[in-house]
């Protein structure tokens, strides 16, 4: 590979990044503009930037208190899931790895179900904390069980699957035992961004941005994980340490996303592959592009979630899976072709 080619690839990469940023901006403005209450587009624009002639009263509240936090939360969650997905795929040398692989989803699901089936109604409000702790604990347990502190990604993956199944079993048992909580549990599992308010946006932004900051910082080194551990060492990378940092940061981002919006599937698989397909590069230097593309994808999916069945809400997980599942199959198929 010539240096010239490398330079071109880098320019192309930046163009894609700029393109994704532009798409995110357009999608975000669209999402703030559309809803069951029709508000003039220019008024929305003026209200957003606090220019004279913006909306007042109810419309203003709708734009600034209902739609805007939801769009921002969607962008944060999308960025978190897509980036974590890309990182997991690198760490586990598996193109089909997703952020929920190590039991984060099942653990969070168990936490949420414990909160929802509790007889203390105060605990319902603490659902995000329970989901967060459940997700983090499940991943931590997978780590501990896999032993030898992460020497072998495959044993971690397997223990992740076992921990996940175990958490799902307890979760299902609790849910069957408290049948009244069945519907809230179910709708939480499908995921939605209805809970968005500035409070939720603030705390999830803190954790997600810290986690993404760490991942962007180690992005270049992450490419070293695609080599064997010996080769990585020769490049001056400590693969064991890097894996722990990467998985810990990705788990923080995922657990925060899950506790804010439930289990939204497939974003972590679809978006990284889409971006890597466009850039023709497997490198993790495109992590920031992946984050922005993930944000745009989820904001757009949420726009669909609140308008397709309007005036009812459609769980956003339905839309991401509807787009994601066929895409997943295409990735599988192409991969098989390459292997043949």
């Amino acid at each position: 590979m010539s240096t010239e080619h490398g330079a071109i690839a880098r320019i192309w990469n930046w163009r894609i990044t700029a393109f994704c940023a532009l798409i995110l901006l357009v999608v975000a403005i669209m999402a703030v503009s559309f809803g069951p209450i029709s508000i003039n587009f220019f008024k929305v624009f003026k209200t957003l930037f606090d220019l004279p002639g913006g909306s007042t009263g109810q419309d203003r509240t709708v734009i600034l208190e209902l739609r805007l936090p939801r769009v921002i939360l969607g962008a944060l969650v999308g960025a978190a899931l897509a980036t974590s997905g890309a990182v997991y795929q690198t760490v586990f040398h598996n193109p089909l790895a997703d952020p929920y692989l190590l039991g984060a989803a099942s653990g969070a699901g168990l936490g949420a179900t414990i909160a929802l089936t509790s007889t203390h109604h105060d605990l319902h409000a603490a659902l995000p904390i329970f989901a967060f702790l459940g997700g983090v604990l499940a991943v931590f347990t997978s780590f501990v069980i896999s032993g030898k502190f992460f020497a072998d990604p495959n044993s971690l993956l397997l223990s992740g699957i076992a921990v996940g199944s175990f958490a799902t079993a307890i979760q299902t048992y609790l849910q069957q035992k408290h049948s009244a909580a069945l519907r809230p549990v179910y709708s939480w599992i499908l995921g939605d961004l209805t809970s968005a308010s500035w409070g939720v946006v603030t705390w999830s932004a803190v954790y997600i941005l810290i986690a993404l900051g760490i991942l962007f910082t180690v992005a270049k080194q992450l490419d070293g994980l695609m080599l064997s551990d010996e080769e990585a060492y020769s490049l001056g990378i400590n693969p064991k340490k890097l894996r722990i940092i990467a998985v810990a940061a990705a788990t923080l981002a995922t657990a925060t996303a899950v506790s804010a919006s439930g289990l939204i599937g497939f974003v972590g698989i679809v978006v990284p592959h889409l971006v890597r397909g466009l850039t023709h590069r497997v490198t993790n230097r495109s992590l920031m592009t992946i984050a922005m593309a993930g944000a745009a994808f989820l904001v757009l999916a949420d726009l669909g979630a609140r308008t397709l069945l309007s005036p009812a809400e459609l769980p956003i997980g339905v839309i991401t899976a509807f787009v994601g599942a066929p895409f997943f199959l295409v990735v599988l198929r192409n991969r098989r072709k390459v292997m043949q």
Partner: protein
Amino acid sequence: MFKKWISPLTAVLIICGVLTAPAATASSNPTRIISLSPSATEILFGIGAGSQVIAVDDNSDYPSTAPFSKLSSFTPNVEAIAAYHPDLVVLQSSATNAATIQSDLQKLKIKVFVEVTPNNIAEAYAEFIALGKVTGHPSRAKALITSMKSQISEIIARARKKTPVTFFHELDNTPYSADSTTFIGQIYSDFNLSNIADAANAGGYPLLSSEFIIKANPKIIFLDDGQYGESATTVAERTGWSAISAVKNKHVVVLPLDIPDRWGPRMVDFYRFIAQSIAKIN
């Protein structure tokens, strides 16, 4: 010692009441109500607040004069609700993200009445009273309850079994059931019917097995899944079920749609229906 406080307090309360009452009734009775609960819709129309209701959710279907809409009761959308410019929204506490929806509506200065699913008839009546108060029809609500109570006790007095009669209430063909701790279970208890699902000790809606139901041998079966195609015929065709007393003696009853699941004025109709269904069983 408290006594001496009572009269001045009462006086103050009365004065406050007199001062605020006319103004309050004139300005605070909601005139643009949205009901996002089928039961609340029936109650609102029952207590005479129907003319103040401007929209009801997609599951409300009674009375036929209600202003039906596509607003969702399970997954309400705040903006879609706000587009109607309501001044009171009845929201089920079991709706998805009910707490967030309530606070979002309040941000838009819309009053919210949160309806908690009642666990028994007394709690259902309490909702009648609360809705009567908030809509400005407290006396109509009380009168409705009095009339329902007298009709129901008359029905029970006529139809109540002297010795317990076993029954099975089927929610779906899995089959899930409802035990005596549930709202509907308590209605059956009023007739001295004995619920076979109580043996599961699940405190709500247990999943039973065919084997258990055959062994319990209920004298009557109530099917709450008629709308999913279950009937006396399909029940008789199930393996082993033909041995059950209710099937042999043709005491398999398909419950009417919706009425068993709602805690509105039509509860009287449900009592009447059960009374008729068990009349011929000893």
